[in-house]
């Protein structure tokens, strides 16, 4: 029943990174601290960087993605790993090869880490449960379930700007129902102890049992954004219109798009985030996306040290624990 168990080794170190749910606050803080040290050019950084030398990281993508794959690739290379990109959107599935067959083949090539993106919720857990013991699995997004590295880079960005988490009010706006990013952000924010998490959107895009996530739901932007410190806009997929979840983009933008007027309701120093890629004029007004309160490009930059931190920490679990811990 405990989703976190499989993620940790017997010394409680990170072994796989599949979901934020179930990880302790200290673990998240360690990731943020490690990312902080890796993003600078201190001597400490240099010591940690060669940790993945001689290791092979496989980007195993069952769903198209350029941005996430690229940042994982860069992160792995900056840790001196060899990187193999495997796109399986069509090939394996259409040949009748099962997911397990694919894994066995890659294992046979002596890989050390799988970075997995898959359209089905729970796919990363499934893979982690069935890989050889020397392999670490990093979830790069599974269905609607989780996108934990994205959530951690968002936490990194929030901590850089706001310093502390405990007094923050955070609003997540848009298609929470279908968003793995939102689920992971909600778990990360609540584990890090923010004061309040709100989700804002029409009823068609808010999970029926949102209370299970420990959040407050709003359907009106002007109420939901009142006095918030952090605004996280979610990407709206075009297919939501064809599935009768929304009438059209204009009405969505009018009600839930972030405009100057709506931004005024939030705190004066509220930061504006978006996991990208942005639909300008649908989720967010261009002037805000490019404005002073926006940290959208910083988020992209932070993706690399945060993913370096997570990959190197997961790899450390394969190193025997030293007799005397530093």
């Amino acid at each position, binding site marked *: 029943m405990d989703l976190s168990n499989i993620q940790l080794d017997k010394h409680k170190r990170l072994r796989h990174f599949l979901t934020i749910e179930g990880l302790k606050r200290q673990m998240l803080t360690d990731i943020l601290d490690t990312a902080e040290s890796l993003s600078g050019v201190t001597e400490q950084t240099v010591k940690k960087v060669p940790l993945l030398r001689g290791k092979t990281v496989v980007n195993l993508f069952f769903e198209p993605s350029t941005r996430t794959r690229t940042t994982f690739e860069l992160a792995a290379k900056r840790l001196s790993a060899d990187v193999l990109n495997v796109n399986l959107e069509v090939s394996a599935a259409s040949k009748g090869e099962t997911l397990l067959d694919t894994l066995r083949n890659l294992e046979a090539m002596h890989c050390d880490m799988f970075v997995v993106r898959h359209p089905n919720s729970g796919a990363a*857990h499934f893979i982690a449960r069935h890989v050889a013991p020397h392999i670490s699995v990093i979830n790069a997004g599974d269905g609607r379930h989780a996108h934990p590295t994205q959530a951690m880079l968002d936490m990194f960005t929030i901590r850089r700007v706001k310093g502390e988490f405990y007094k923050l009010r955070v609003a997540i706006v848009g298609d929470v129902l279908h968003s*793995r990013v939102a689920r992971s952000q909600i778990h990360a924010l609540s584990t890090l102890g923010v004061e309040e998490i709100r989700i804002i959107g029409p009823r068609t895009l808010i999970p029926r049992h949102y*209370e299970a996530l420990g959040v407050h739901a709003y359907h009106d932007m002007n109420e939901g954004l009142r006095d918030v410190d952090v605004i996280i806009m979610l990407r709206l997929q075009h297919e939501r219109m064809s599935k009768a979840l929304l009438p059209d983009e204009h009405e969505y933008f009018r009600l839930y798009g972030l405009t100057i007027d709506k931004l005024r309701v939030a705190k004066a120093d509220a930061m504006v985030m978006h996991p990208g890629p942005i639909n300008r004029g649908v989720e967010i007004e261009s002037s805000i996306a490019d404005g002073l309160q926006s940290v959208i490009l910083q988020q992209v930059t932070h993706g690399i040290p945060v993913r370096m931190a997570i990959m190197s920490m997961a790899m450390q679990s394969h190193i025997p624990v030293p007799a005397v811990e530093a």
Partner: protein
Amino acid sequence: MRILIRNGHVIDPANNIDATLDIAVADGRIVSVGRITDGFTAERDIDAGGLIVCPGLVDLRAHLREPGQEHKATIASETRAAVRGGITTLCCPPNTQPVIDTPAVATLIRDRAKAAGMTHVLPLGALTQDLAGTQLSAMHALKEAGCVGVSSAMTPLGSTLIYQRAMEYAATHHLTVFLHAEDSSLADNGCVHNGAVATRLGLPGIPAAAETVAVATALALIEETGIRVHFSMLSTARAVRMIARARYDGLPVSADVTAHHLHLTELDVLDFDSRCHVRPPLRSQRDRDGLREGLRDGTITAICSDHQPHEADAKLGPFSSTATGISAVETLLPLALQAGVDSHISRRDIIARLTIGPANILGIDAGTLSPGIAADICIFDPDGYWTLSEANMASQGHNTPFLDWELQGQVRYTLLDGRCVYEQGI
């Protein structure tokens, strides 16, 4: 063979029997139930002291996978598993390959079952040709070939109009319609109950309304036509209440529930456990309690296994891409008994829901120990504890979340037509 079953605690709800008695069997039929008759000489004596003797169980829904999916299981393998669970009559839904929409397929299934010689197998015919939901199947021919009812087997019907006409045509031939009430557009691509767990795991949900809307539609049609309908595998508390109300209003409806829905809830999916991927989905604890309440108050008159054996690969994958269903014939009796203990339903009432209840839904002469009737008998040790393991399963499918559960109630003997088709340890 003349068999005497001595000193068993005979529970035969249909005849209001609940006492320590003997049963005499000859020529495949029950001769008498009572203190033993003088002059009955038995070739075989079964000492049933401390054991419960009841009618062989009647399972309204067990997938045998044959024809078409013999890599999952066969009629021979699954009927052998069924008798280990005390089942002597089972219905197989029409979603075989090819589907049971021609007399040939129904006949083939019955012939293979007869050759296996383990349980009676009663096919359910397809409500529409190829289960495509558009054209009616040749129900009269299916009935002649031995189908005891017709079913849509979880496939959607093209329209409410086709639904109504299929019901009317089935009623013309006195075939009970077995409905799995699920509105396919509301179920969408869901794979779990649309509750807290779906929200947390990001799995697409099937709302309770997918069931209640379908039940409401069916009840409206039944009200209009007066046709008898059986609702298979209820999963929500609200649907149970709707059917209770309909029965109170005098509508000719009945309902069953699976043994696993009486025990498991959405929470059992929390680890993306594909063994708990079932249809209808495991719902909330409140729903499970509602199903148990319906079982107690008699709204639900049958417990079925919805046995669905799979090869191991079918359950290996990310949750939503795995096959649905549980290999369940061997756990039907102990899980039903346990549900009785957990929700204060008498053992006699539980046995009724496994025997005469489903037999009445089918309108067949089974599920009782009346003299003259075929001697289909289950003899079990009510105190026998055992642990389910892959090693002790007879079914070809080992896909069950009840592995390693300690179960109470162990079948010792199963008799079919007066023949001992299963004896524990032999």
